[in-house]
C-alpha cells in the first residue's frame, strides 16, 4: 500500500494474459509503475508491445489478470464492473487518436457529455463546459458541429471533454496520430500547458518527437518495461 500521498498511480506485478485458441499471450508481464500527482509520463514502444493494453488497465477500461493497482490510494484491480465504471467516469479523462466526437452533437454538447452522467446541475454544467473550452481555446466555437472544424480543432474539443469533469489524470492514446505535424505540435503544446498548470498526464505514443514533451518516458518491449528515461528540460 503506498503511503506517500503524492502518489496517484501505483502498479505492482501487473500482468495481462489473453487466451485465444488455447494460446496464451502475455500482453503485460510484471509491470511495476508509480506515477506521482502532476507528472507527465509517456509510454513508448513498438506496435504490439503492450502500450495500449497498459493504458486500458490504467484507464480502468480493462482489469489486470494478476497484480495490484492503486489509484489515489484506493485498490482498483478487483472492482466490480459498476464500481469500475463509476470511478472511470469520474476520475479519468480520455483523449483518443480518432477524437471520438459525435457528429450530430455540437461542440458544447460533446464537451458536456461526461457531466450528464453525474447529475451535475445545469448551471454548473454550463460554467464547467465554458471553462474547459476556454482552456483549449475553443470557446468561440461552441455552437459548431465537429464536421465544421479542422482535425486539430476537433482534438482540442476532445481535450476539453477530457478535462471538463476535473479528472485525476488524463489518458491520451496516440493523440496526434490523425493530425498533420503542425496540428499535432499544437495539441502537444496544449497538453504541455495543461501539465504546467498541474494536470497529471499519461500518454501513449510511438512518435519519439512527442514522447520528449513528457518528463518521464517508460519504454515497453514485449510486455515489459525495458527502460525509463527522464527529460532534462521538462
Amino acid at each position, binding site marked *: 500500500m503506498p503511503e506517500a500521498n503524492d502518489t496517484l498511480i501505483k502498479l505492482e506485478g501487473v500482468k495481462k494474459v489473453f487466451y485465444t485458441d488455447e494460446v496464451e499471450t502475455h500482453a503485460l508481464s510484471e509491470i511495476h509503475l508509480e506515477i506521482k500527482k502532476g507528472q507527465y509520463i509517456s509510454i513508448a514502444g513498438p506496435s504490439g508491445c503492450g502500450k495500449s493494453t497498459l493504458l486500458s488497465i490504467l*484507464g480502468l*477500461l480493462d482489469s489486470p489478470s494478476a497484480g495490484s493497482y492503486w489509484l489515489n490510494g484506493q485498490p482498483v484491480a478487483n472492482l466490480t*464492473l459498476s464500481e469500475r*465504471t463509476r470511478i*472511470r467516469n469520474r476520475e*479519468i479523462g*480520455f483523449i*483518443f487518436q*480518432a477524437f*471520438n*466526437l*459525435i*457528429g*450530430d*452533437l*455540437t461542440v458544447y*454538447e460533446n464537451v458536456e*457529455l461526461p457531466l*450528464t*452522467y453525474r447529475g451535475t446541475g445545469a448551471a454548473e454544467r454550463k460554467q464547467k463546459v465554458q471553462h474547459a473550452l476556454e482552456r483549449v481555446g475553443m470557446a468561440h466555437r461552441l*455552437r459548431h*458541429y465537429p*464536421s*465544421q472544424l479542422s482535425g486539430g480543432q476537433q482534438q482540442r474539443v476532445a481535450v476539453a471533454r477530457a478535462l471538463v469533469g476535473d479528472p485525476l489524470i488524463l489518458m491520451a492514446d496516440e493523440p496526434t496520430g490523425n493530425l498533420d505535424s503542425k496540428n499535432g505540435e499544437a495539441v502537444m503544446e496544449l497538453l504541455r500547458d495543461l501539465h504546467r498548470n498541474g494536470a497529471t498526464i499519461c500518454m501513449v505514443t510511438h512518435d519519439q518527437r512527442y514522447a520528449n514533451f513528457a518528463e518521464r518516458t517508460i519504454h515497453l518491449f514485449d510486455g515489459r518495461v525495458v527502460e525509463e528515461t527522464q527529460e532534462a528540460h521538462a
Partner: protein
Amino acid sequence: MEPLIQLRNLEKTFDTGGNKFFVLRRVTLDIQPGEFVTFMGPSGAGKSTLLSIIGMLDSAWSGEYYFLDQPVHKLNVKKRNELHKANIGFVFQSYHLIDNLTVFENLDIPLSYKNVPSKERVSLVCDALDRFNIVGKKDLFPSQLSGGQQQLVGVARAVIQNPKLILADEPTGNLHSAQGEEIMKLFKRLNEAGTTIIQVTHSERNAAYGDRVIQLKDGWIVSETTATAHAG
C-alpha cells in the same frame, strides 16, 4: 401526402479569394415520408454537404428548406437543433462511438440530451439492445467489437428514439462486404417499418437497397433514377 423534405434552390458557396465557388447549386428536391433515397456522385460533388444541410448540422447556405411543415431556413440555431434532435438519427462512416463508454452508455447518449426520465432511458436502451441482438455486448467497449458490431451499435443509437429520418454517410465504408451487407439489410428493414432513409454511398450495391438514386456532380443534381431492384 405532404413531403417530409422540400428543398428549393438550395445553394452553398465558398469564397476563394474573391471568387464564388459553388458547393451546391440550385438544388430543388422533394423527399416523401417512407422513401429510401441514395445520393451518389464523384468525390467533391456535394453529397455529404447536402446530407449535412438536410441534417441541420450545417447552417451556412441559402435557399428554402422545409422539414415537415417547418421552414428550416427561417429557424434559429436553437430551433434547428431541437428539430433535428427530435426527428433525425445519424449514422457515420467511422461510427462515432466513444471508446471509454460501454455499448450501453453509448446508446444512452442521445437520451441524455433530452428530458427522458432515467428509468425510461434504461428501458429504451434495453429495448434497443434486444432489438439489435446485442444484449451480450452491453458492458463491452467499442474497441472490443468488430467494425460490423460497432456500426450495429451506431445504427442502434441513431434509431433509439424512433426518428422519422435516418441520414447515413457512407455507413458501410469502413466495413468488410459481409458486414456491410448486414448493415444494409438492417436499413432495409427499418425502411420497411416506415423510417425514411437518405444515404450517401459510392456503392451501386448499397444504392440498390433504396428506391431512388440522385446523382450529383459539381454541386448540381444531374440525374434521378429509380434504383435497380437487387436480388437480396
